């Protein structure tokens, strides 16, 4: 299987602090790749480097066989991104914004307008075209950011927390679109804290902690790696969820913290 994204020794330092350390990733074309980690683990820093929002301190990034550093513009034409800040221009309307984005990606007029219409319809935003983006709810902004990220038909889609602050209906719309893209051969790289969604959508998962990649593979690989076929009290085997795998992989600190928290903050409630 050809690689959509490959990183070698990807590192990002902030002075003495190493946010991402020596990461080697390989995302095959057509994969729905979940990139997980606790807060401050280095997920956003990694996705920023993969999308050109941040320059790596060391290492290299290959996207669709092209070196990002030397072919930045060509790579950017092939990818779509919904970054953490959503990259929206608040004082444009949705139609104006999508038209602007289409033009910036070099789409012709007719295609931009047609896709704008289709995307707004699909995202249930067609009735909101008079509003400025700044007046949109968070969920509507997320949907619009996703529409903008796909208007040029990218081969790889990078999504930083796409389901954060999105209601169930909007999340359903987003999932439907993403699954459709995967079915048509696109590659999706997403970070999310909603592990149930990642488990349902992603074919492959990587887990990062303290800037280092600590697990990488299919869900089955991860289960096998952390001995997830654990016996329960009755002697039957239980297939652990991604959340349980995540907690085991990240370590026991989380569990300890939870135990301690029961004794602390006694004034709450």
């Amino acid at each position, binding site marked *: 299987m050809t690689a959509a994204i490959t990183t070698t020794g990807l590192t990002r330092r902030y002075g003495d602090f190493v946010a991402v350390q020596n990461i080697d990733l390989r995302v095959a074309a057509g994969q729905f790749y979940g990139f997980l980690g606790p807060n401050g683990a280095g997920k956003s820093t990694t996705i920023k480097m993969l*999308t050109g929002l941040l*320059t790596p301190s060391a290492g290299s990034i290959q996207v669709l066989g092209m070196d990002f550093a030397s072919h930045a*513009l060509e790579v950017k034409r092939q990818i779509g991104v919904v970054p953490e800040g959503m990259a929206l*221009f608040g004082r444009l309307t949705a139609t104006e914004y999508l038209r602007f984005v289409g033009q910036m990606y070099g789409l012709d007029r007719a295609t931009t307008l047609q896709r704008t219409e289709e995307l707004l*319809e699909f995202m249930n935003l067609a009735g*909101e*075209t008079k*509003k400025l983006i700044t007046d949109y709810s968070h969920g509507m902004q997320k949907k619009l950011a996703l529409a903008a990220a796909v208007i040029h038909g990218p081969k790889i889609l990078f999504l930083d927390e796409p389901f954060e602050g999105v209601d169930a209906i909007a999340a359903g719309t987003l999932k439907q679109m993403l699954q459709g893209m995967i079915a048509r051969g696109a590659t999706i790289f997403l970070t999310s804290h909603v592990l149930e969604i990642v488990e349902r959508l992603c074919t492959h998962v990587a887990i990062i902690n303290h800037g280092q990649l600590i697990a990488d593979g299919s869900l089955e690989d991860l289960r096998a790696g952390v001995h997830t076929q654990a016996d329960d009290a009755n002697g039957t085997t239980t297939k652990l969820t991604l959340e349980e795998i995540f907690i085991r992989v990240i370590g026991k600190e989380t569990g300890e913290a939870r135990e301690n928290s029961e004794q602390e903050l006694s004034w709450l409630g």
Partner: protein
Amino acid sequence: MAGMNPSSPFSVAPGLTREQFRTIAWLRWRIFVNTLRGKGAAGELVARVLSYPLLALMIIGPAVGAGFGTWLIVTTAAYSYLAIPLWLIFALWQFIGVSTSASGPSFDLTILIRFPIRYRDYLLMRLSFGLLDPPTMAGIACLVAMSIGIGIAAPALAIWCALVLFFYALCNILFSRMVYTWIERLLAQRRTRELFTVLLVAVSLGVQVVVQFAQKLGAHGGPTNPLLQRITHTLLAINWFLPPGLAASAIDHMHGGASVLAGTALLGLLFFSGVFLFILHLRLHAEYLGENLSEAPRAIEDTSASHKRSSSGVVAESRETYTRSLLPVAVSACLAKEFRYLKRSGAQLYSLIVPPFMVFIFAARSSAMSQTGLQSKSVSSYLFTYGCAYTLLVFVSFMYNSLGNDAAGVQFYFIAPVRMRDVILAKNILAGCLLAVEIGLIYLSASLATKPPTLDVTVATFTWMLFAIFINMSIGNVRSITAPKLLQAGKVRRQNVSGLSSLISFGVILGAFGLGAAALLLCRYLGTGYWAVSLIFLLLAGIAFGGYLLGLQRVDSIASEHNEGLTKELTKGT
């Protein structure tokens, strides 16, 4: 409800208000200190240190003038003339505010409504924060100097004058807060913004008509013209019922021993303060209750209508406005986006209207000076030049922070296959076009207000502008990327600014003015006239343009180097 009893930490305890004030003062201090940390902090610190003497000069200069002038008025017993410095202080207080930014780091005080703060405390906070703004400090310093001037000339009146001027200061603070709070409200929505723009244009035309009318009357009989005398008397009579006149009247009557009349005048001043406070309260109370200044209410009304439209209608409408461009696609797309932003940025539109309006004000002032024989001939001859210089002062703030309005959208420039050079070029093209329109309007204003500038002065001014614009754009482009500040839509005053960028732009403008003056003096000395000045600046503009193009070539590498800081600064709060 558990935890909501009188001793609950949620209730507004008597000591809490003081604590809240202290906390907000601390917050402002911490924000100030934190701006001096990280990348570019040393430059910011130097900029601040260097700007303080200028600020002091801005405050001390008018204060010394006000103090001395008042002393002179009181020693000559011409008490009624006290209204003149009081009107000047009023003008200084209200009009300087438009073109000055926050003296320190600012934040949106409306965020305070999420905390358990009583309305009256919120009102007090809104009133008290901002007292260190240059116009307020200058106004207060002038009034203190006036008190000292009166105190020296007539010690018996010192306490009364201090009291009257204290209430006059309060009246000005309330008026200033009221005006700017309402302007921000009016500029926040499209419909009211359009009305406000029309109103401003009407006022500017009105001033022009008044100036023309006064000049005609002056030409027919001068100050002895009966109609002019009648108008002057009417204006003077009205003056005594307005705050500056009332304050002067209170002092004048007390000097004459008419304490009841003096007290009545002071009550009149208090009445005005009360009215301003009430109008301010209407706005702030709505804010306190959570009213949003966005265009959401209107947009929601429109939603039902837009639902009825067929989806193809969206495309049909877009097709109508989709035009081909001679520029590269990315540049024209950015240009269209910039133009849309401009249309929706009330504060920017307001700034663009001000320069031609100021030409009329300047013309009116020079006309008034000519009546008293104080006007030099150069004022009317160079009105166009002065107007252009003022416009440049307004525009540099856009040039040195051209990405500030993009906020989180700036990320898009890094994830899309677009060069930052094209984005900056689009911004520069729009700024250039706007400046061209502005120069045209100033030419028209100057011609209507006095007389059309001569061709040689026009060309010399134009070439000087070209030189100054390219120099400022070259440096402004770099500063926009390396020291961006997030701009809040709909805010007229107290926007975030980079102290170092302000200082650099000030130095560049000062240098450009100095070069202009030097070239003018040299050409006068050599007897070559303004055409030689034009030639010098045409040459300098050519060099500046070359520098601008070279700078534009480097924009991508500078943006790549600073992309992290740039996106971090502009995505704050998203």
